[in-house]
């Protein structure tokens, strides 16, 4: 009864169903063995078209931004736009020499590095504890970490702005990095804990038997194996800070980051500053994500439960 209903729904599956038991490879065999149905071909082209359209949907807007930033300022404000830019560095050059850009860029970089260091130095030990020990309070700790990930953290910049004035670290990159680290720390804990779980505990035990203490075994055996993954989560922390807008715009005034600079000078800065700034924001993030693309899925896979 079940098979008859499936034929009614999708007759095209008949041709392949005979020999296709399960895997994709056998389905391909079935298609080469029999003459492919027109319907199958149509689906195949529809599939390819859909994939291509979605690839273009992601890439074309970025390409257009890049196009804008290698156009002259006259082209950017001119009409109509062409797809053939002047290939000039005038816009980027103007951006570099615009008041406050260099220091904003430096501040963004500094905040991101601070965030990275705080998130890893505090997060990796906790990740190791979650991976290697079973202790009372473990699940509560894990819950806190997972829940805090879904919390609108940037809003906490509001009270911290007041607190930072009292402590004397207002308008400082270190203060901002603390806020960014609360965003990045939960990710660092979850990512490193899954990393350490993937490294067999037997390796460590072997090192203990050979006379290493816990720290030595960690440093000589676990750390080299975990290093690429730890680097990936550090890069992720960097990108979180680099891209953050709201807390940066609230907490930095004189020492503003690039995102804060772009938001705060929205109305007075010329268009070319926005586009060049957008490009400078996008490029490092893209490079970094490319470097850690391998880890992206395991990262979200584990951290989503």
């Amino acid at each position, binding site marked *: 009864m079940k098979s008859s209903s499936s034929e009614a729904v999708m007759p095209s599956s008949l041709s392949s169903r005979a020999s296709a038991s*399960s895997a*994709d490879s056998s389905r391909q065999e079935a298609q080469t063995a029999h003459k492919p149905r027109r319907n199958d071909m149509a689906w195949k082209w529809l599939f390819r078209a859909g994939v291509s359209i979605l690839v273009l949907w992601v890439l074309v*807007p970025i390409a257009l931004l890049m196009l804008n930033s290698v156009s002259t300022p006259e082209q950017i404000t001119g009409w109509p736009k062409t797809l053939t830019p002047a290939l000039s560095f005038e816009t980027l050059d103007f951006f570099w020499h615009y008041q406050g850009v260099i220091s904003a860029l430096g501040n963004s970089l500094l905040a991101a590095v601070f965030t990275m260091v705080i998130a890893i130095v*505090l997060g990796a030990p906790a990740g190791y504890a979650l991976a290697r020990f079973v202790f009372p309070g473990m699940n509560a700790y894990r819950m806190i970490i997972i829940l805090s990930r879904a919390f*609108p953290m940037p809003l906490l910049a509001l009270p911290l702005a007041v607190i930072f004035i009292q402590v004397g670290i207002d308008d400082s990159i270190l203060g901002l990095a603390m806020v960014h680290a609360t965003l990045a720390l939960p990710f660092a804990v979850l990512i490193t804990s899954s990393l350490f779980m993937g490294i067999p505990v037997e390796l460590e035990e072997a090192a203990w038997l050979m006379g290493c203490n816990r720290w030595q075994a960690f440093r000589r055996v676990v750390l080299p194996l975990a290093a690429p993954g730890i680097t990936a989560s550090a890069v992720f922390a960097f990108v979180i800070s680099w891209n*953050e807008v*709201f807390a940066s715009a609230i907490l930095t005034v004189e020492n503003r980051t690039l995102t804060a600079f772009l938001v705060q000078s929205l109305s007075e800065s010329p268009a070319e500053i926005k586009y060049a700034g957008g490009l400078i924001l996008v490029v490092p993030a893209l490079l970094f994500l490319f470097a850690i693309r391998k880890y992206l*899925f395991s990262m979200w896979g584990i951290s*989503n439960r």
Partner: protein
Amino acid sequence: MKHDRWLPYYLIAPSLLFMGAFFLYPFIQIFAEAFTSSDGNVGLANFTRIYQDFNFWPSLKNTLLLTGVVVPLQLVLAIGMALMVTRMNKGRDSILYIWTIPLGISDLAAGIIWLAILEQFGFLNSFLSAVSVIDAPASWLNYQNAFALFLAVVVAEIWRGTAIVLVILVSGMGLIPKEYDEAGQVFGASYWQRLWKITLPMLRPSIQSALILRTLLALEVFAVVMMLGGSDMPVLMSETFDWQFLYQQTGAAAAYAVLIMLISVVITGFYIKFLNVPKEAR
């Protein structure tokens, strides 16, 4: 090793202390600020103040409407993309990388990217004029074209925010044992039947976490709207920013923050209750 019993606590202590100082303390402080008026009285003065502001209802309406439109579209699009990914053989990794690129792009940069396309002298108008749909550059992104502006933000948000849903769903699909789908095939279930009866129900935990995360992020929409609409399209976060940064009224800003948290909690609770994931499916 006797001291081992305390070792895990030493290891988690720094992160706990840090989260206590920079998460818990400001969290309490934000409520204290929201419920304390500028003359030091405890009460709802800050809330009546933002409520009476003419931007309150528009910002609330815009934020909720945006969330209600963007999140379902993103979910459907991401499910479609994730299903495409599972049917790919060669080129899977490259296409997946390209599709997740927006994950690394800041909301501010995404706003700038779409500004380049949608502004009055942007690429869209240039294209429309080249194919002679319009004669003169039209300005879409202002309050006179509220609907076009809203649409622009929706497009930019879908462009930027779908990747995170996709990543969660793709890694969730990797967790579904292949045997279920194969069993479905053996019993002759069609692709659509297997999708509705096997894949999507098995994917429910991932769909739930993707929805929660994405909805909370949608409620925090800020930089995209600032870039595309400026003050022409107020949202809750931009109002929070204005009260804090422009008007220097920290109490009113804190009241907005409390409101945003409250909506987040209510919606998360709603998802957990109505997208109930059975224990054994986790």
